[in-house]
């Protein structure tokens, strides 16, 4: 486990920096559903709700809206509504949702592939399928969580199958709700803030160098003059992650090293 020391004797793990970076993706969102896929994004959404973004809506991971903020895998003490799949899909169309999805491939335009590797008609590796990615990306602010930042995910060319829609593929009013926000990885935080929505490096996690991120990315990144370090968690945030949200340390199984 890579650790960095902040303040007193608080050694912050890489996974904990990732939780903070994911939480930050929902900052300023207000009363929207934080739809999180994966352990670290789920922890990020719950941490954001417990701290700076209390109006977020979260689910119990199944079909209920949690009124409080349960630990990972625990049932909420109070429920504020139901969100079965049908309602969830209606909510996608209604907006009021910021989703953080995974990606098996992601390209420089922000196209995401979770469907298949290789030729779609006879894939070398069948993945999940389109799932909700096409609808998510044309309807909702979308961020991505990549637990292993590598050139296998950040591909040099275009993704093999476009499940989630990137920039430059929607014309006129069709694209009015398209909004790719952030990419959080185990190494860094990126966004689409470069010229023509080019992928830009926002911050690297402590212990990671900019060169490492460049080497693990299959396309050129926009590098601002001043690349920050991903911010440290406060002592209270660390306590919430470790004691309240994830006492069993599931985050360290998703992000190692």
């Amino acid at each position, binding site marked *: 486990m890579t650790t960095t020391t902040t303040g007193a004797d608080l050694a912050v793990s890489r996974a904990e920096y990732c939780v903070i970076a994911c939480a930050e993706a929902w900052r300023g969102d207000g009363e929207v559903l934080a739809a999180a896929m994966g352990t670290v994004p789920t922890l990020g959404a719950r941490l954001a709700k417990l701290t700076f973004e209390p109006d977020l809506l979260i689910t119990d991971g199944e079909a209920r809206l949690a009124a409080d903020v349960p630990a990972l895998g625990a049932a909420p003490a109070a429920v504020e509504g139901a969100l079965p799949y049908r309602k969830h899909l209606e909510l996608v169309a209604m907006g009021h949702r910021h989703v953080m999805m995974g990606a098996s491939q992601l390209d420089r335009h922000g196209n995401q592939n979770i469907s298949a590797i290789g030729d779609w008609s006879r894939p070398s590796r069948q993945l999940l399928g389109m*799932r909700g990615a096409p609808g998510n990306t044309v309807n909702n602010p979308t961020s991505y969580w990549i637990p292993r930042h590598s050139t296998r995910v950040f591909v040099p060319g275009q993704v093999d199958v476009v499940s989630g829609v990137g920039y430059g593929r929607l014309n006129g009013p069709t694209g009015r709700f398209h909004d790719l926000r952030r990419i959080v990885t185990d190494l860094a935080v990126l966004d689409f803030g470069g010229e023509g929505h080019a992928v830009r490096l926002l911050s690297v996690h402590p212990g990671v160098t900019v060169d490492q991120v460049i080497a693990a990315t299959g396309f050129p990144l926009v590098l601002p003059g001043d690349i920050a370090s991903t911010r440290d968690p406060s002592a209270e945030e660390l306590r919430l992650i470790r004691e309240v949200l994830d006492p069993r340390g599931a985050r360290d199984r998703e992000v190692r090293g």
Partner: protein
Amino acid sequence: MSADEVVGRLSDGMTLGIGGWGSRRKPMALVRAILRSGLRDLTVVSYGGPDIGLLAAAGRIRHLVTAFVTLDSIPLEPHFRSARESGTLERLTEYDEGMLLLGLTAAAHRLPFLPTRAGLGSDVLRVNPELRTVVSPYPDGEELVAVPALRLDAALVHLNRADRQGNGQYLGPDPYMDDLFCAAADAAYLSCERLVDTADLQKEGSPGSVLVPRWSVTGVVEAPGGAHFTSCVPDYDRDEPFQRAYAQAAADPSAWPAFEQRFLSGDEQDYRAAVADLRAEATR
């Protein structure tokens, strides 16, 4: 009815809708009855789970319409993977999850299509070249995907309770799309954990929990454990040890025949005995 009688009403080449979602409340007893039959060349519409894996592995599906196939706690369905990677699945229509919902809704509403933004800009339009778009006739002029109605010859769903008239009740947190599958079908067959008197439907749930109305149901089968190994909350959770055993065997062509022989060569009673046997082995 019995599960085998349901399958007796189905024929080769039909379009079947299968309810549930992923590895959740799948009408597995009915799927197992299809596996025992000679039914083939099916078009299957499903939010796919092991129903698709099993039918694909047995070569029963000619055309699959879905948005994903998954075992939930195991992300990729091994049989579906190998059917796709070996090219044995003849045709796949791969939609966004919301498009599938709209296609079923259009069929249930007796409409030719319903419009959506989902799919635009993605490869859903590339890999399904038969899909058409429509332009809003209003001043916004927005272009939208016209999802065609997914009309079904028959639907198969599994609910917690039902009465003999075909009113089906769910007691878990999610209805999935089961009522839409039934309404989109010319004939719908509902299996349930327990048949109850109509008056007793109100004992365990509110009127709103009676999801599937009898007008949309052709036949009812009492099939306790009929969703196994998928979940049927609150009656039972997913049988994770069994699902792991299934996934391991499904991922290994040399192991699959023995699994098939042990669990799928007999009738539903044999299946349940074999499952109990495996469970006893694990706790021994």
